[in-house]
């Protein structure tokens, strides 16, 4: 319950300051109707399963997100680590293992899955 805007601001600053430690990896799977139609639910499950198999769940968080607008590359997966990020797609269930090993296991920034990011946000 936020009693005033200062409380909200403080909470927002706190969220910004914790979060990104340089070892933690965030995996964002595009899960709007478009992504789900392209199989994002299954892909998210597959990625989670492989992360458990590789026993790296301690430092990896898999999350859903909205649509980045790239219908032609759905399902899309974004991998974030220490302020850097790489956008991947299309990632199918069969690709999940590859993606985890190449992009989460290593810090590989180049692979056949990488989509060049051609947008800036007003929040950057």
């Amino acid at each position, binding site marked *: 319950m936020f009693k005033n805007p200062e409380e*909200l601001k403080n909470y927002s600053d706190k969220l910004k300051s914790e979060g990104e430690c340089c070892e933690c990896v965030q995996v964002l799977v595009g899960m709007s109707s478009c992504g789900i139609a392209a199989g994002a639910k299954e892909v998210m499950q597959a990625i989670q399963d492989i992360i458990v198999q590789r026993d790296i769940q301690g430092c990896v968080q898999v999350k859903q*997100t*909205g649509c*980045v607008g790239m219908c032609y590359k759905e399902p899309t997966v974004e991998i974030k680590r220490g302020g850097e990020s790489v956008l991947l797609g299309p990632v199918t269930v069969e690709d999940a293992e590859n993606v985890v090993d190449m992009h989460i296991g290593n810090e590989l920034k180049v692979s056949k899955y990488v989509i060049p990011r051609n*947008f*800036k946000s*007003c929040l950057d």
Partner: protein
Amino acid sequence: MIEQYRVVLRNCGVIDPDNLDDYIKQDGYQALGKVLTEMSPADVVDEIEGAGLRGRGGGGFPTGIKWKIAAQQENDTKYVVCNADEGDPGAFMDRSVIEGDPHSLIEAMTIAGYAIGASMGYVYVRAEYPLAIERLNRAICKAKEEGLLGDNIFGTDFSFDLQIKFGAGAFVCGEETSLIHSIEGYRGEPTTKPPFPAVEGLFGKPTIVNNVETFANVPAIILKGKDWFRSIGTKTSPGTKVFALAGKINNTGLIEVPMGTTINQIINEIGGGVPNGKKPKAIQTGGPSGGCIPVEYFNTAIDYESLKALESMMGSGGMIVLDEDTCIVDTAKFYLDFTVEESCGKCTPCRIGNKRLLELLETVTNGTADENTINDIRSLSQVIKDTSLCGLGQTSPNPVLSTLKFFPHEYKEHIEDKKCSAFVCKELYQYVINDTCVGCTLCAKKCPVNCIEGDKKEKHTIVQEDCIKCGKCFEVCKFNSVDRVPGGSNV
């Protein structure tokens, strides 16, 4: 290389829509905090008016002026309505915003409520968007739990509540008066304006109706200021616009670019051009109310005015790319067919006029049109535009008029030469088998209606009366023995 700039889609694909913390981390609800503690309602209206934000649902009416009119009404009950009844073929930005960033809509509607003096808001969303409804519902509950929506927001004496209303899928309900009647529980039929909803709207009370994309701009404007917003886009149309790229284009999807970006930049640099090495012919913008812009005008910088000057309109931002294999007359017919389906039937020009206009277009595509047809189409279109009750009817002939203006040769070709060079209009071409046929029987085997005759190792023939023009024989023949030639039953 042009880069997209995301204001409306700033959180889409960045945050988890079901996680309020994610939104707060992106400065979420801080605009609301600022508005409630540092600004008067009049300041908020001035800020939005000063930013020059215009309605992103299509019409481009200045949002600030709409808010100002509603704010000036003396009434103890007012309403904020969000139009999320996205119905244009090929447009899906509203769905994406609600699915990817529901809290920004809640925050913006609450700000609007404070600005005009409303304590109740409705989101009118299509029932065909179950995921959007589910996420928006969860977001509303969460916001209420945290005191960001509901009674005494942030401990102030301002209260605002939100309710979701489901649209049953009628295109006309995207028109604001129809939408209002639909929320009230009546048939979704339009009424004349004035009175405008800002004066007398939902349940007879002053009401603002804004599109999802318009609302999504509001928190950013409040936080970053009107001057920042004015620095993006063009002088008359500040800010960005989200387009849904569809049709014959490589990179389909949602894009957001500053107003003033040219069509070429969007199609070639962001959209990655037309697939299979084909040439683009035109783009269709504005859905069934818009028009087709030919390739010669692709260096046009897009804003509300420039599209209007090209007989099209911004609409909600659907942008469908047509390539050289598209028949323009058939495209116009497609959109008119849509309008005829979706006309509510209340006024005669729209109900009967559009039906008759569609029949005239059908004579063009089936080869029975004569020299008077074009004139008939023009005059009937003008009558429909001038006399229809609501926006749906007033704009329904636009796809026909704009294609008549920019592609008169295609109409002429259909009417005078009885020919469709794109080979789309089935009555104006036929498949024939030429002398190179070796009688392999493949086409006869694949023909779904068994209309190809001929003995093995003999030249085959197509029985034209039975042919459904599916093109299967043309596709499967390995010897290029099937030709597509002008001609047909009415030719």
